[in-house]
């Protein structure tokens, strides 16, 4: 019984480790996919927004509306210890706008 469970766990682990070769290996975006003029904004977004949760949470949220993003990021800014200042809002929102446009265009 113990042996079977150990083998099952090892197989599951090996499978999971082996499969990402063709998948994304980052919670955020591959920086090479981000256009040059958005990389500084992306850096602020990636740094601030990964403090409490994975970047996938926001990138997978399906939000594409700028006003919605503003409310969403405002809510995060007000989280205790977020470290997201008013000054950080603009680059974060600029990146999310760019990302949303990219998503809308099917990219």
């Amino acid at each position, binding site marked *: 019984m113990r042996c079977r*469970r150990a083998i099952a766990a090892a197989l599951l682990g090996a499978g999971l480790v082996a499969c990402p070769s063709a998948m994304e290996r980052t919670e955020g975006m591959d920086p090479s996919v981000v256009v040059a003029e958005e990389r500084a904004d992306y850096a602020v977004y990636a740094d601030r927004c990964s403090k409490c949760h994975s970047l996938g949470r926001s990138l997978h949220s399906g939000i594409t509306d700028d006003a919605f993003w503003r409310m*969403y990021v405002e809510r995060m800014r007000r989280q205790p210890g*977020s470290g997201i200042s008013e000054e950080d809002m603009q680059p974060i929102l600029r990146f999310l706008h760019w990302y949303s446009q990219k998503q809308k265009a099917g990219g």
Partner: protein
Amino acid sequence: MMRLQTLQVGRLATASLVAHVKRATSLLPPVASLLVALVAALLGALWPGSARALDRTFAGSVQLDEHIAPGEPSTNAGTQSFYGFTTELSGKIAVDLSEHVSANVKICYGCHGFETDMAYVDLRVADELNFRVGRFSPSFGAFNLRHDPANHKLADKPLPYDMGRMLRMRDWNLGVLPSPFPDNGLEIDGTHWFGDKLQLDYAAYAVSGFKGGETGLDIDFAQSHSGSLYYVDNNNTPAGGGRVALTAKLGPRTDLTVGGSGMYGTFDPQSRLSYAIFGADVSLRIGRTNLRAEWLMRRQEFDATDQAQLKYTVPPSGGDFFVKHGAYVEMEHPLGAGVDGIVRVDGLLRLGNVAAGSPLTNDSSVLRYTIGGSYLVARGVRLKLTPELWQFSYADSSGRKVEASLHTAVAGAF
């Protein structure tokens, strides 16, 4: 133009509502009238002034965890090792009703079945003044914000916040403050930035508080959370507490947060037995590297009228309480594309009387050493490997004080 008209209509409606409430409350005592008028004015000010659509976000997570401890006795006669397979599922919806009002509902499924982890409304007057009403985990400590398995990279929680994955958990009755700790009540909180470098957070709350039996020797955390026993206070005496934290941006990619928390309440139906929990935390983030340290302490009174249920005689001078300390220090560092390494040392120390028959003494401790890894399989899916070495101050039935265990977990989030 349309938006301006909508806003004007909204303001007229607000003024009309306040005037109507003033007329209706003219017969009430002056203080009550003032209170009602203030609430009406607050609701009027916060009510959505425009007809914009609601903004909703849905998020969820799942973690499957297999905990194997080869040397730990099992309760299952078919095996000689301890296996703990646990599942945590959660789904959360957040709705922004307006710029000042939002609501959150989160349902979890874990060891005790379905649980309402969040069901609250935030009424935000300003960044510095928010009223949170409903069911929520009151602000305490640093870890609770990351309690969802999707938001921490080891498979289990630090021991001070352990909710059931620790070895010998029944000896210890879990950690100091098992997380999450949702409760019903009101919290007033806020955040303020001093310039662009310093963020101050505060919270003060009144909630129904933890529950326990009439002659209980400790808090009954299952009873405190279970909806099947009704989400109502068992002693009509609220518990209260608060938190203050300061976050300093030391550099473009460096944050330092220092916080302190406290909570006080009674847990028995007669409201005679109190608990007081204090905590201090510090966390430093340099780039993607996180260093965290946290200490919690709970002073817990218990019923000592029946000395037969206690291991040690209670002296006439008192001593009908115990103190439970918990602390952890951890470092989380990215090791490569999609791989994070985490090192943690955590422990519990319990001082004071214990139940007769308990393997604990009046001075028991456990230390745990963890070197874990978190591997990103695909965006939103992580494999967590968490080997642990446990060092108890007391031997179990087979004479062991040291145990080794391994968590293998898969966590997904969206």
